[in-house]
């Protein structure tokens, strides 16, 4: 088999089972691809020996006829996941050198299904960012380039994951999505990214950013690949009190089910002023595709949408300010010594946390403090309930919602870094689903005139990922998105 990297996950599984390729060959190809595209800085640790050992085990199981769902498939892991015996830093200096003695539930599920771990992927520090520019390892870069060949951000916070899947240096990748951190980079890099329903995947062993919003999910090249890895990732976990016991639907089967008879809502509030006209065009195109496939398109209203972003930027930092208190230099990670305990805290946290993380800790501390709690945090929680109510109302009449994934295509590295508020706006279409705990998927729909990918987003009812895959499957087929990025492993450039 000559084009190992050209196989999507479903195809690779078939080839492995037919013994047309071996897991070691496939893994070797991906390790080579990761080295070849090292300039994208999407890996922060490549665990080649570990990967090859796992692949060899996979080959044995395949030979024994005991292949798991993901047997032999090379997977990159966002550095936010704790991986046993392997450095796990959340791309923060404060966790530099931290090697957990435990494995996150999600990654443990992947390895139990036969997945092969390639290494750890770059992300925004503690998953705080929309461009992967806030990483202690430096920015990850988007393999796509515009006409001017300027380096573009891959999106964030799971930028390394999206970049690696797009650049074919990982067949599959994990990410986490707190306000859009899977869907936005998936859209920027032209890959498929799912944020499952809150509670669908265990949060145990994932470095927490904002506990009530964080949710792990997969990055893949195709919708079918996505349903495949998602089936292995999800599980009820007694170690996570917010983990669901709702049974998982047949996701793999849903991909080809089509949308005939489905009611798809188009929320008018997602048509925002100043939005890129190409984004609007794609959105309308997406509606047409679904209508052509037999769905009924219905205009719906989500009246509190405009309050989602402000509410999110209160709730997420509030939780983060508390979640990140444990990084204090006492037990693990970085410590900067000082004369007093308070001095040690201050020196350690000043040196260990980057600027954006410090900003959010300060915002979060402020909004929770006495005298401000009611005006900020409590009000934001009320807004959150209203937003959830908007969706509940809409889902009385429609089965899923179609929206753009992002207000624009990927932007150049460094362009917006001095303007945090503009950066926050990247999350405008993705944040409401986190506040409401809903599943959302980003699918590549087309490219801009500059040749950069744009994505469509499908939102669904809680624990109805199957409907997302049905809609996403139709969009994928209709879009026929075949373009590949300039800086792809084994590619032209």
């Amino acid at each position, binding site marked *: 088999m000559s084009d190992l990297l050209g196989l999507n996950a479903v195809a690779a599984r078939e080839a492995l089972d037919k013994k047309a390729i071996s897991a070691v060959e496939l893994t070797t190809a991906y390790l080579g691809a990761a080295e070849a595209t090292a300039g994208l800085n999407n890996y922060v640790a490549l665990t080649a020996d570990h990967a090859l050992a796992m692949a060899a085990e996979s080959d044995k199981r395949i030979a024994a006829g005991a292949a798991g769902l993901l047997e032999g498939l090379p997977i990159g892991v966002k550095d936010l996941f704790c991986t046993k015996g392997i450095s796990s830093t959340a791309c923060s200096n404060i966790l530099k050198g931290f090697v957990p003695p435990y494995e996150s539930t999600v990654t443990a599920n992947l390895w139990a299904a036969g997945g092969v771990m390639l290494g750890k992927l770059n992300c925004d520090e503690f998953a705080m960012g929309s461009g992967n520019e806030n990483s202690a390892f430096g920015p990850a870069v988007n393999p796509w380039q515009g006409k001017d060949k300027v380096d573009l951000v891959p999106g964030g916070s799971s930028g390394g994951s999206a970049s690696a899947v797009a650049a074919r240096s990982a067949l599959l990748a994990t990410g986490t999505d707190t306000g859009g951190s899977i869907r936005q980079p998936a859209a920027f890099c032209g890959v498929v990214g799912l944020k499952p329903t809150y509670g669908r995947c265990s949060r145990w062993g994932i470095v927490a950013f904002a506990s009530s919003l964080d949710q792990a999910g997969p990055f893949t090249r195709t919708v079918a690949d996505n349903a495949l890895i998602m089936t292995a990732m999800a599980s009820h976990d007694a170690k*996570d009190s917010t983990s669901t016991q709702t049974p998982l639907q047949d996701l793999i089967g849903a991909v080809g089910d089509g949308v005939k008879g489905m009611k798809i809502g188009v929320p008018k509030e997602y048509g925002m002023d100043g939005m890129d006209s190409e984004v609007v065009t794609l959105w309308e195109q997406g509606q047409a595709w679904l209508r052509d496939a037999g769905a009924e398109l219905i205009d719906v209203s989500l009246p509190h949408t405009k309050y989602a972003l402000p509410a999110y930027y209160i709730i997420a930092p509030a939780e983060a300010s508390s979640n990140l208190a444990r990084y204090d230099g006492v*037990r693990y990670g970085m410590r900067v010594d000082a004369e007093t305990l308070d001095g040690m805290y201050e020196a350690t946290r000043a040196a260990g946390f980057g600027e954006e993380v410090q900003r959010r800790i300060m915002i979060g501390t402020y909004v929770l*403090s006495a005298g401000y709690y009611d005006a900020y945090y409590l009000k934001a929680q009320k807004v959150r309930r209203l937003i959830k109510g908007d969706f509940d109302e809409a889902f009385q009449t429609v089965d899923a919602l179609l929206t753009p994934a992002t207000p624009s295509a990927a932007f150049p590295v460094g362009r917006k870094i001095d303007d945090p508020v503009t950066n926050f706006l990247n999350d405008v279409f993705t944040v409401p689903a986190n506040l409401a705990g809903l599943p959302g998927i980003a699918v590549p729909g087309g490219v801009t005139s500059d040749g950069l990918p744009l994505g469509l987003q499908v939102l669904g009812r809680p624990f109805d990922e199957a409907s997302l895959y049905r809609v996403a499957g139709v969009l994928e087929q209709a879009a026929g998105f075949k373009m590949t990025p300039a800086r792809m492993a084994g590619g032209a450039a």
Partner: protein
Amino acid sequence: MSDLVTGRTGDWEVVIGLEVHAQVSSNAKLFSGASASFGSAPNENVSLVDAAMPGMLPVINRECVYQAIRTGLGLKAQINLTSVFDRKNYFYADLPQGYQISQFKDPIVGEGSLRIVMADGSTRDIGIERLHLEQDAGKSMHDQHPTKSYIDLNRTGVALMEIVSRPDMRSAAEAAAYVRKLRSILRYLGTCDGNMEEGSLRADVNVSVRRPNGPLGTRTETKNLNSLRFIQAAIDYEVARQIEIIEDGGAIDQETRLFDTGTGTTRTMRSKEDAHDYRYFPDPDLLPMIVTQDEVDALASALPELPDDIRDRLMGEYGLSAYDASVITEERDTARYYEAASDGRDRKLVANWMTVELFGALNKSGKSLENCPISPEKLGELVGLISDGTISGRIAKDVFADMFETGKGAAAIVDEKGLKQVSDSGAIETLIDQVLAANQDKVEDYRGGKDKLFGFFVGQVMKESGGQANPSMVNQILRSKLDGA
């Protein structure tokens, strides 16, 4: 009874409220599977959750919730079917998460009450404001190294119940009675071992003073008192300190104070201005805690009989004094001992023997009821021998001492030593005749009007009998011989 304190400028009323931290009796901690046992080597009982490793999550230990509900039921309190765990945020080296998981707005247990009994037998009902569950912190050790502090996380995450009273107490004695009673209920329920030396039960004391019926004064809070003696000493000191300041024209600062066990004084720990802003908010790692009425009912129906109920029964059915009933019911083991010892016996007499002789002997020998050499059945046997006239109360004291020493049965000792009471009227009559004959002059005096000499004759007869003569028969026969002749 007045608890007013007299100062230089008049009377003062003391107002006291207590926050008691009671460690929940459970095998595992509140949110992690680690052991909650006492006395392990440093950092032996620490899970990944306790050490707040990245990505670790709390999972509620349902047994701790049940223990809190049992306690709430024992305090006749409102059980809240929905309660919420909040984070109380502050930095300290022995607080790995950087926050304590506690309950702030919506505690598991709401209002209840607790009845205290004072030494004179009078009772007062003290209001309970709330009970909530929270995590304990770890321990910082500053004396292990010249320049470093050591941290022991064994206690980190152990479940505590914080039980908050209304400011209903008016004296140090009432505060002590409150803690004693609360401890008694916790131990009956088996929800806290009540061991103050090991820190299983600690109290924060809020004290203020005011003019009788006047507006409430400014309070101070003295933290972390771990004995009844310290609680009373801290209150007494605070009351005197506050009255002196106010009478000198000063004002009380609302502040947190520490008690110095060496000097018996309190000193400022932090003022109101330095108070932490704990930034409480609902812990997003945990869902609201739901318990069903069925669960509560099941716990209620399995609750043991509590001291107040037993006390009422002992006073009502058995006719015990308020004091005896309170002493006997303070500890579950004591009440059980009493029930066994007094079964089929003179209930009041057994109570008397327990509270005076038995407790006296235990006290003196440093023993507890647990390793008492006299079983309840044997004490009952002794009382039975008194009741049926086999031995006198005085002889019984000797028998008791022997029993306590040897662990033998009462009847066996009486037999062995020939202590059986003489109730043969002929024999007693002979003794009396001898005594009267030997004291003719006093017989004359008695008959001449000095009737107080009667006691003298009784004493002589008892002495001659070696204490074994039946005292009521001696009385009766002697009277007929002296008065009737």
